[in-house]
């Protein structure tokens, strides 16, 4: 995993260098470093963007490389957020409860503390009992493990059922949408055990660190997000650089041919689907503490569709394309929907971007798909000169895909 991959993919080094410089720059300009240039809330936005870039890398692995158009990876992202959110909320509430009960004349028993925590957390859904899924909420180590295990397990079971019955293409996409919708609807219920539509909140406050200002916490998470993106990126580049990458690209382009070479295609798909779900879980676990709140609306089907749009706009089948797409679209999106974009007055009608941004995004998606299928990442090819030959004449062979001799010689 050392030299080979960097030698084969110089773009990985370029990416790491840019990410490092970016992280350093933001750090120096942050309130944490005593500067006023980048506000704490913008540090959080940037940190969240890095997490979105990470889940986009996972999406690119599963879609751009393995050809599985999953429209459900945000479910895994959200689950990762819920898993870490449970610990954050439990421990913080415990701190508050312990502090208030300490004033009481008789020291509270452990059971009293737990029931008081339950009251605090589940009061909003008219309950005070801890559901079974909170059994390990007091253990950071276990909840961190669940960040990868729970999304991984869901992906494994779902993928095992779907791939084994050879569901592919648009049917698989619809099935993944159904999965994320079902999960969101389930979580919306008050008795799902995760506070229904209230979701988990106050996640920006780290238990036991009340004295630490948000300017510090935000920069810690920013670093962690940058680190996770760097590791996730190198890991993904390693996966796709060798023969494994060859096989999954083969599956994308001609799955039955790969089968006749003797490769167990379904196992490969399951592997990629599960591993990317775990990466998505990690990204979500870093995202939601920066967002402060997670609720079931986060894993609505549309979120996973956005994910595919980012990757398509950035350029699928190349990892940096996914990062560019996620960063660019999500930042532009928060600019437009945050009310910062100036309204356009047409005289008879005023375009308010808060309402029209989605239309613009949809049109850009259609435009990219039709006019520039390589996405923004394709611009890099202009620079490195990796252009496909211009095919104006007859093909080399009877296949419509073949090049002309002169072009092939280049």
């Amino acid at each position, binding site marked *: 995993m050392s030299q080979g991959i960097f030698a084969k993919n110089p773009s990985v080094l370029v990416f790491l260098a840019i990410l490092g410089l970016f992280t350093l720059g933001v750090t120096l300009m942050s309130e944490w470093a005593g500067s006023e240039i980048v506000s704490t809330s913008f540090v959080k936005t940037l940190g969240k963007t890095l997490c979105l870039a990470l889940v986009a890398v996972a999406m690119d692995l599963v879609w751009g490389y393995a050809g599985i158009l999953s429209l459900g990876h945000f479910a895994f992202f959200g689950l990762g957020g819920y898993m870490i959110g449970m610990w954050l909320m439990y421990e913080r509430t415990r701190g508050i409860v312990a502090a208030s009960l300490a004033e009481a004349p008789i020291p509270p028993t452990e059971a009293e503390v737990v029931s008081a925590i339950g009251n605090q957390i589940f009061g909003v859904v008219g309950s005070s009992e801890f559901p079974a899924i909170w059994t390990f909420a007091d253990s950071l180590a276990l909840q961190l493990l669940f960040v990868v295990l729970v999304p991984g397990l869901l992906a494994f079971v779902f993928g095992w059922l779907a791939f084994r019955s050879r569901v592919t293409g648009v049917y698989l996409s619809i099935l993944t949408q159904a999965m994320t919708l079902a999960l969101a609807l389930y979580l919306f219920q008050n008795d799902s055990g995760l506070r229904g539509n209230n979701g988990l909140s106050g996640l920006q406050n780290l238990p036991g660190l009340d004295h630490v200002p948000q300017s510090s916490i935000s920069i810690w998470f920013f670093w962690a997000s940058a680190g996770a993106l760097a590791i996730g990126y190198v890991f993904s580049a390693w996966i796709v650089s060798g023969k494994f990458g060859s096989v999954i690209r083969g599956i994308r382009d001609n799955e039955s041919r790969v089968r006749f070479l003797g490769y167990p295609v379904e196992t*490969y798909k399951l592997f990629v689907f599960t591993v990317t779900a775990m990466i998505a879980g990690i990204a979500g676990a870093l995202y939601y503490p920066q967002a402060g709140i997670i609720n079931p609306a986060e894993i609505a089907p549309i979120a996973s569709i956005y994910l595919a749009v980012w990757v398509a706009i950035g350029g699928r089948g190349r990892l940096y394309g996914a990062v560019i797409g996620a960063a660019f679209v999500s930042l532009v999106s928060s600019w437009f929907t945050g009310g910062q974009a100036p309204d356009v007055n047409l005289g008879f009608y005023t375009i308010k971007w808060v309402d029209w941004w989605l239309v613009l995004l949809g049109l850009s998606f259609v435009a990219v798909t039709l006019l520039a299928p390589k996405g923004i990442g394709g611009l890099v090819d202009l620079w490195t000169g990796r252009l496909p030959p211009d095919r104006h004449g007859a093909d080399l*062979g009877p296949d419509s895909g*073949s090049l002309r001799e002169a072009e092939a010689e280049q």
Partner: protein
Amino acid sequence: MKSLLEVSGVSVSFDGFKAINNLSFAIGDAELRAIIGPNGAGKTTFMDIVTGKTRPDEGRVLWGEANTSLLGLSEARIAREGIGRKFQKPTVFEDQTVQENLLMALSNARGPLQVLFYRPTPEDLDRVHELAGEIGLVDALGRKSGELSHGQKQWLEIGMLLAQEPRLLLVDEPAAGMTPAEREHTTALLVEAAKSRAVVVIEHDMDFVRRLGCKVTVLHEGAVLAEGSLDHVTANRKVIDVYLGR
């Protein structure tokens, strides 16, 4: 002689149309066999059945010394048993280089984890080089296979087949779209391959079949119409009527 592959009494129908009708066929180790027959005779469907792509309605397909039934095994499993297949239309991975295509076909472990940690050994690279030499693509090793000419793609696919080191090669119309010189080279490749393994070639071109110089099976309406040397079957009245005399 004990046969390597034995197909007996196999039938398959698509929406009531009997594409294969009580077909029996056997081939031994290190045998070269040509299958000819009019369009729609069921030649490709026969290969589909052997390789697990199509499940027959009835009949048996037995493989190897242990007489394993291939019915019910997955395509990938059958391929790992040692049956390689070349499709009628050349199917190589166009987005990948010739070298990547050959490396993928090389007979190494196929499981995801083994493949994930696989790095080509010098022997593997030598083997790829050697194969590329046999199929005349040494200079093209670093080129994307989508840039190859039609004939070169056919060869690459044959090369991938050889890389798999199968015990039985099923080759569907290997010479389609090739120039006469390319055809001759292809014949040589197949004859060479058949020295150490069984090879079944489907072909329409009679000259090509003649150069193979092997036993011929004529298929018609999903069943064997005649079998024997090329001269023997071409003298057969029924064969002339349904195939040659058209």
